[in-house]
């Protein structure tokens, strides 16, 4: 992608940014993250259908943050992740320059929140039909069937936390699993520990998850973790009309309330 390489070289040589986070050729199915600081390295950059990883997770990695001002190749999910991070005061406007690449391979620079918000207002990043279909299928099962389905999936987990590490919104320096006074979540990868971990992680992402699917892709045991958050996203949109990462001034669904929130189960 010559235009992208040229843009990266320009941004670095003009000292607009200190590092460009983009994609390079991976050794397997997907492209890998590249951190371009020297002009020659920019030649490694590519952009195609293998570039799926949500790079926003690196904006929170302190070894990357310390490199200085960041330019980041962003797809729609990355843009939404950036806005959620911005709404949680994780970086200030101007610290991160988003480079959005249109389907026609044009590069759009988004230096401020408004440009990202305006763009996202024009695209549909909701649940896709096949994602909705899987969630519907599970919802149609009986409670006992759902329990069996998820227990079987959770049994595969060995708590490697690839799901947590790959998620841009799981950035707590001390995760709830790392607290031991009290020990909320058992450290062991037992059936109970795994179930509590995954349910609690999904809850901590309620109203914040942008549905990039990196958690499920990162899982070495192929557990469909994103289904838990898909279900949440669907429910939150229906009950509260809220969608994470559309505005930098959004307040997350769980942090706020409306006096007339409608429920039907509290007696």
């Amino acid at each position: 992608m010559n235009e992208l390489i040229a843009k990266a070289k320009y941004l670095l040589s003009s000292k607009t940014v200190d590092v460009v986070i983009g994609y390079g050729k991976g050794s397997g199915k997907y492209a890998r993250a590249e951190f371009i600081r020297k002009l020659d390295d920019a030649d490694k950059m590519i952009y195609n259908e293998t570039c799926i990883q949500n790079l926003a997770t690196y904006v929170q990695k302190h070894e990357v943050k310390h490199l200085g001002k960041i330019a980041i190749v962003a797809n729609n999910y990355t843009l939404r992740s950036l806005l959620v991070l911005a709404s949680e005061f994780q970086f200030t406007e101007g610290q991160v320059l988003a480079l959005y690449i249109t389907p026609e391979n044009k590069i759009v620079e988004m230096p401020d929140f408004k440009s990202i918000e305006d763009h996202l207002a024009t695209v549909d990043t909701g649940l896709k039909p096949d994602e909705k279909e899987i969630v519907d299928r599970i919802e149609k099962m009986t409670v006992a069937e759902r329990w069996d389905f998820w227990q079987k999936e959770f049994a595969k987990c060995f708590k490697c936390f690839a799901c947590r590490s790959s998620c841009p919104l799981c950035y707590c320096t001390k995760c709830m699993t790392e607290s031991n006074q009290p020990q909320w979540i058992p450290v062991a990868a037992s059936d109970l520990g795994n179930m509590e971990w995954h349910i609690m992680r999904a809850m901590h992402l309620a109203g914040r998850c942008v549905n990039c699917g990196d958690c499920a892709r990162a899982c070495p045991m192929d557990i469909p973790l994103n289904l838990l958050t898909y279900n949440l996203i669907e429910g939150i949109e229906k009950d509260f009309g809220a969608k994470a990462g559309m505005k930098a001034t959004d307040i997350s669904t769980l942090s706020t309330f409306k006096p007339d929130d409608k429920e039907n189960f509290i007696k």
Partner: protein
Amino acid sequence: MAEFEPKIVAFVCNWCTYAGADLTGTSRIKYAANVKIIRFPCTGRIDFMLLLKAFANGADGIIVSGCHPNDCHYTYGNFHARRRWMIFRKLIDFAGIDINRISFNWVSAAEGARWAEVVNTTVETVRKLGPYENYKQVALSIYDQEDKTHE
């Protein structure tokens, strides 16, 4: 054979439901003794993890109860709680946890008789559902993991 007596854990707020439960007692209203009450300053303080922990520690059913909307002692703690329960309930139902075992209520400090009714209804509902064996078995998994390494 003795009838199954469900173990119910109740997470209640101090200013409304706890006072209401107290009123039930001083009014000499008899109600099921299966419930263990845990007092919080406000329903807004009830972390969703605590409900899972109640099940993991052997509870068959759970009651969550607090001030009516607009009556919260801290103004809007119960509004936050309400939103939290709306989301959490959907998630755990999706994950296969039996939400019929959890009863959410607003019980004020003046509703002594209502508290007795809430407890009695929940106990009967959970009694019909039976002990929460599924969850208890998973909770024991940590002491018993040897045989499951390669399942």
